[in-house]
């Protein structure tokens, strides 16, 4: 019987965490809505299983996405996760192959060297020992990076790293001490028995040259076991909970479960899946343009986990979605923030230890019912019957050039349209949504919906991505909702709109709510390619910066907004374009204030390029022809 008391802490920790993982999984599963439960069942036993396993391997072990963001940070995560995984895998095989019997309890694999100190002297055993030493060295190199990252985050290619709370620190120290204590324990044992490969062997023989190796080894085996045990016990109440959470999350997500607009088990999984890697801080414009470093998603999730008042954090965000785009775990950060904005007054209370291990599902208070409608002053309107509705949006009224451009495009297209908010319309409701006031937003949505239904239109065109997003997401409409760039693309495709090509160089800034927010990336660019020379930049598509004008942020002042705009313009104008094109009135207004380059909405560029309706005159009138510059 190979047993020693020092394995008890490890065993306690291991069985605790295994049981905990099962219990927590059950709790989470039961917390899902009925459709989500079905989705997960189908997903787990269906085709997406393979996909999930692949993703777990690529993301949870290899950390591919972090690698893409920062190779050094990726290596750090990979060496710890993948290295440790391999160490366990090969350790188990080692114990199975070289141990006294097959199918050993887990501690045999972990403490193999202690129970088999003579192992590794020759042949295959030595090769295996070399492999194990190599893996340990691999992990230790990652650990070294992690330690340095704590002290000096730039080493791993990051400008900022997350700040930790006390329990996280204890867990981190126990994790950190796992591998050095294993190294020392194995090295002393190897030194005492003259075994071990290039790492443990060399270190062991050197240590034993001046230390009593046999006596020194035993305390380190204890330390190794204690570190592991402590780490496992603390894991559920620290950020390391992300390790098991992420596995569950991957299965849930691949089964098609999404955050939606209510808090629930899936949201909680996501909140616990955050490893506080800090990538969201790095890509956040509030961080690198205005120096606000305490409101990023990692802090939001941490605040929620720790029952802190996160209302200031929740509202101090551009809602640009850049962090969602870059999150290596794929957490839907912006929807979670929206949920938090709706959550209202936080109910903060100190948590008991039990509640820390088994927290309540986050509950969002139901909407206030029975209160007076806020917008009772809005009287129902009777719009004209029409085919196409043009809804400029509040912001477009502050940029009349866009409005006028759209009118000339609509006129040139010959479609039957109504400019529904010509004399000022009712807000689309998204700003209220962004402020967490869903009930009030719903009132506006209902008002506008009624107006749209009554018009009998089949298409709703808007110039404002903010409106577009909410029309698509939160309105129940039986009309096709198009951003004007999409509408213009349709007109071009169908040959309705004839456009001149100009040789102007243009870079395109994708507005947050249109690109990351609504997934419209290609139509604007295709329209631009019709009329101008579109240049690529590093800030295209998903990487587009927020202009800074975002209605999502309630907290920053106009100086800070301007700084964001200045930095955004710098990214967008590296190729010195003639025009910086965008497709949002708010972006246009914000960016234009920060640059000398002409900023124009795509609608304006298109309107300028429209070929006059009577081309015959154009080619027969010599004077007219003379005026055309010869390029």
């Amino acid at each position, binding site marked *: 019987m190979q047993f020693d008391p020092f394995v008890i802490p490890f065993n306690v920790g291991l069985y605790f965490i295994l049981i905990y993982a099962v219990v927590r999984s059950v709790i989470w599963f039961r917390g899902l809505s009925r459709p989500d439960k079905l989705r997960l069942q189908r997903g787990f036993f269906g085709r997406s299983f393979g996909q999930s396993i692949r993703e777990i391997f690529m993301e949870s072990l290899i950390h591919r996405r972090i690698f893409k963001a920062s190779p050094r940070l990726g290596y750090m995560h990979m060496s710890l996760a993948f290295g440790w995984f391999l160490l366990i895998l090969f350790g188990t095989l080692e114990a199975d192959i070289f141990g006294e019997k097959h199918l050993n309890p887990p501690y045999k694999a972990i403490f193999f060297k202690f129970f088999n100190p003579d192992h590794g002297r020759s042949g295959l055993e030595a090769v295996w020992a070399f492999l194990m030493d190599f893996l340990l060295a691999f992990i230790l190199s990652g650990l070294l990076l992690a330690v340095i990252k704590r002290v000096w985050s730039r080493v791993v290619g990051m400008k900022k790293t997350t700040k930790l709370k006390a329990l996280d620190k204890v867990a981190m120290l126990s994790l950190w001490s796992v591998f050095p204590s294993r190294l020392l324990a194995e090295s002393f044992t190897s030194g005492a028995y003259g075994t071990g490969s290039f790492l443990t062997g060399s270190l062991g023989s050197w240590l034993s040259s001046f230390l009593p190796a046999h006596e020194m080894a035993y305390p380190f085996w204890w330390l190794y076991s204690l570190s592991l045990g402590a780490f496992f016990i603390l894991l559920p109440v620290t950020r390391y909970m992300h390790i098991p959470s992420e596995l569950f999350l991957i299965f849930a997500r691949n089964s098609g479960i999404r955050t939606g607009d209510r808090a629930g088990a899936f949201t909680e999984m996501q909140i616990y899946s955050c490893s506080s890697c800090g990538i969201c801080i790095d890509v956040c414009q509030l961080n690198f343009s205005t120096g606000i470093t305490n409101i990023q998603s990692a802090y939001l999730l941490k605040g929620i986990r720790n029952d802190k008042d996160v209302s200031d954090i929740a*509202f101090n965000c551009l809602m640009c979605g850049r962090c969602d785009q870059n999150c290596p775990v794929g957490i839907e950060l912006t929807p979670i923030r929206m949920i938090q904005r709706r959550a209202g007054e936080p109910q903060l209370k100190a948590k008991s230890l039990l509640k820390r291990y088994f927290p309540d599902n986050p509950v969002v208070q139901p909407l206030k019912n029975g*209160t*007076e409608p*806020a*917008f009772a*002053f*809005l009287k129902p309107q009777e719009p004209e019957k029409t085919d196409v509705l043009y809804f400029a949006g*509040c*912001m477009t*009224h*502050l940029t009349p050039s866009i409005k006028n451009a759209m009118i000339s495009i609509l006129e040139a297209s010959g479609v039957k349209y109504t400019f529904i908010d010509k*004399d*000022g*319309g*009712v*807000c689309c*409701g998204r*700003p*209220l949504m*962004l*402020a967490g*006031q869903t009930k*009030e937003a719903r009132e*506006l949505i209902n008002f506008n919906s009624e107006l749209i239904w009554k018009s009998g239109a089949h298409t709703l065109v808007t110039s404002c991505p903010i409106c577009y997003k909410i029309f698509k997401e939160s309105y129940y409409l039986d009309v096709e909702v198009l951003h004007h760039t999409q509408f213009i693309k349709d007109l071009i495709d169908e040959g309705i709109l004839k456009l001149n090509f100009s040789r102007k160089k243009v870079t395109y800034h994708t507005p947050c709510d249109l690109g990351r927010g609504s997934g419209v990336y290609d139509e604007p660019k295709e329209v631009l390619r019709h009329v101008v020379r579109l240049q690529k930049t590093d800030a295209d598509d998903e990487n587009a910066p927020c202009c800074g*004008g975002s*209605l999502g942020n*309630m*907290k*920053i*002042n*106009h*100086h800070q907004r301007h700084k964001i705009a200045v930095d955004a313009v710098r990214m967008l104008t590296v190729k010195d374009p003639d025009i910086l094109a965008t497709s949002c009135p*708010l972006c246009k*207004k914000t960016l234009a204030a920060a640059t000398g380059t002409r900023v124009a909405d795509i609608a304006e560029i298109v309107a300028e390029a429209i070929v006059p309706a009577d081309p015959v005159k154009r080619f027969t009138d010599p004077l007219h022809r003379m005026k055309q510059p010869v390029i």
Partner: protein
Amino acid sequence: MDKFGFTILKARHINYDANDKSVAEYICEHEPTFRVCIECGCCTATCTTGNFTSLSLREINILIKRGELARVNENLKKCMLCGKCTLVCPRGVNTRNVITLAREALKNKFKDAV
């Protein structure tokens, strides 16, 4: 009591000393740009809601400063938070946040606050 066929009217003046200026202080603390408003009325002129009903953000600003909160509460809920006011403000007042902060501060003072 209408024993004499008339009632006593409340004084119309703003009683600055008696009024509650805590909302103004709360907003100033969290949104310092509130202080630099010069009551030009740009916000009111561009207001989406003001197109439909009597909502004057300029007036709300001044009434908050003077502590005339009942009228503020009555009007504040009409705001659609569209943010045009913030864009047109010549002094860079973060008017949208002023409104959300005012709503927050009024929550404890009026039952029917938004």
